[in-house]
């Protein structure tokens, strides 16, 4: 039972991180503005570093090191003890910090619902709309090639 609940919470955190990582820093900050964010401390000040990105040989085979990407990370602890982590592509420490804060709030029984109902839905919708727009533009370039049969002799 506990196991299911913690798996459930982990899936929620991952989904939220996935959405937030695709958002602009200002966008996340704007939606958090409406939340009465509780006291929290910086557990790890924002820090830039690298993550080695791995591909797979042939797309689905053994892994190989492709190249690195810049990543920013931060960690936050709420007064009530929840620890949130932010890891995101790029060198935007403020963004990593905001993601860490959201991650901590999602784990807090007092704030989880607020984040889930006020912060994430508009961001989720914006990211989905962006994906949809790209898919619609791409679909317009779908092509039907046909081969011409060579004439006899």
């Amino acid at each position: 039972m506990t196991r299911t609940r913690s798996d459930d919470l982990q899936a929620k955190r991952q989904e939220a991180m996935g959405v937030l990582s695709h958002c602009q820093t200002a966008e996340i900050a704007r939606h958090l503005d409406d939340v009465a964010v509780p006291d929290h401390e910086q557990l790890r000040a924002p820090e830039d570093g690298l993550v080695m990105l791995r591909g797979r040989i042939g797309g689905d085979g053994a892994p190989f090191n492709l190249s690195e990407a810049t990543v920013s990370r931060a960690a936050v602890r709420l007064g009530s003890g929840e620890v949130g982590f932010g890891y995101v592509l790029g060198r935007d420490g403020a963004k990593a910090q905001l993601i860490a804060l959201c991650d901590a709030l999602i784990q807090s029984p007092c704030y989880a619902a607020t984040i889930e109902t006020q912060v994430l839905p508009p961001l989720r919708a914006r990211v989905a709309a962006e994906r949809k727009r790209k898919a619609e533009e791409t679909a317009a370039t779908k092509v039907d090639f046909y081969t011409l049969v060579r004439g006899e002799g």
Partner: protein
Amino acid sequence: MYVAVKGGERAIENAHRLLAHERRGDRSVPEVSLDQISNQLSLAVDRVMTEGSLYDRELASLAIKQARGDMIEAIFLLRAFRATLPRFGSSEPIDTAQMQVRRRVSSTFKDMPGGQVLGATFDYTHRLLDPALMGEASPEQPSVVAEAEPGVMPRVTDILGRDGLIEPSPVEDPEHQVGDITRDSLSFPADRDLRLQNLARGDEGYLLALGYSTQRGYGRNHPFAGEIRVGEVSVEFVPEDLGFAVPLGSITLTECQMVNQFKGSDTEAPCFTRGYGLAFGQSERKVMSMALVDRALRARELGEDVKAPAQDEEFVLSHSDNVQSTGFVEHLKLPHYVDFQSELGLLRKLRKEFAEANEAPTPMQEAAE
């Protein structure tokens, strides 16, 4: 051998000041911004990220601006920057089957699940200079197909693989630590993971020439572009302090699956072989060249004669890195006075011996003094 020199500080300082001035160009012309470079010279940014071996659009744009558009200088700058940051770890292997595809073409099948989508491509353009771009162009909005779903499509090699018509990808060995040329220097023979890492950051022009050479018969392996796809893939990373996979965001990748002629034996049915290319951004020429060279470098593994330059892994992998290459070639312009003096002394001695042997001094001997 290079012997260090001292002096010239003032001249060097002034040369760099002049460089900054020339970089800016005519000051009545607006300065180019990093956003402009990232958005409007996006393929240059993709190349600098790929060969600079660092995914960061803003830094690659800065490098291009600082290098005045010299791509290899920009790649050098990006490589130097990456050495200043700590590494948090390695990502989970990226799954290109989950790519949100923005372009996907195959020269082997016209009908395949998901279809062929051209996306934004130079293919089928007439390669005529467009006078409209001389001023400020305002292109039409792209056409759309309403309600199209984000395209996740199977790879062509997955489709061929179902019938056993193509060799499977090499299976992951949990005992094998993934090789990393940024941590350990390359030794030969090199495994395929190391070769691919080397080719991924290798110079596009160099790989293009080698790939072309295989098509012209130097290590021929009969390629078809099984699939080229471009799009966004999600990157996940398991931080030590967290213990589960964290989505870091998405990156743009180009992937090429090259399908090549057969291998088979008395015990194994013949099947297509494959070469693989993967690079940051939209880098089609790069991934196609990489896949051709990857396949050529598998000659030993596939029991083919190693006769052509593209099949010689020590030759190919030792000269692919343009930062290394440019370092060694360009160091020739630094002062080599001591070195040259010793060669000059030797040459004079040889000429003197030659003259004495022939008993007739040459006029050049006086001129060189």
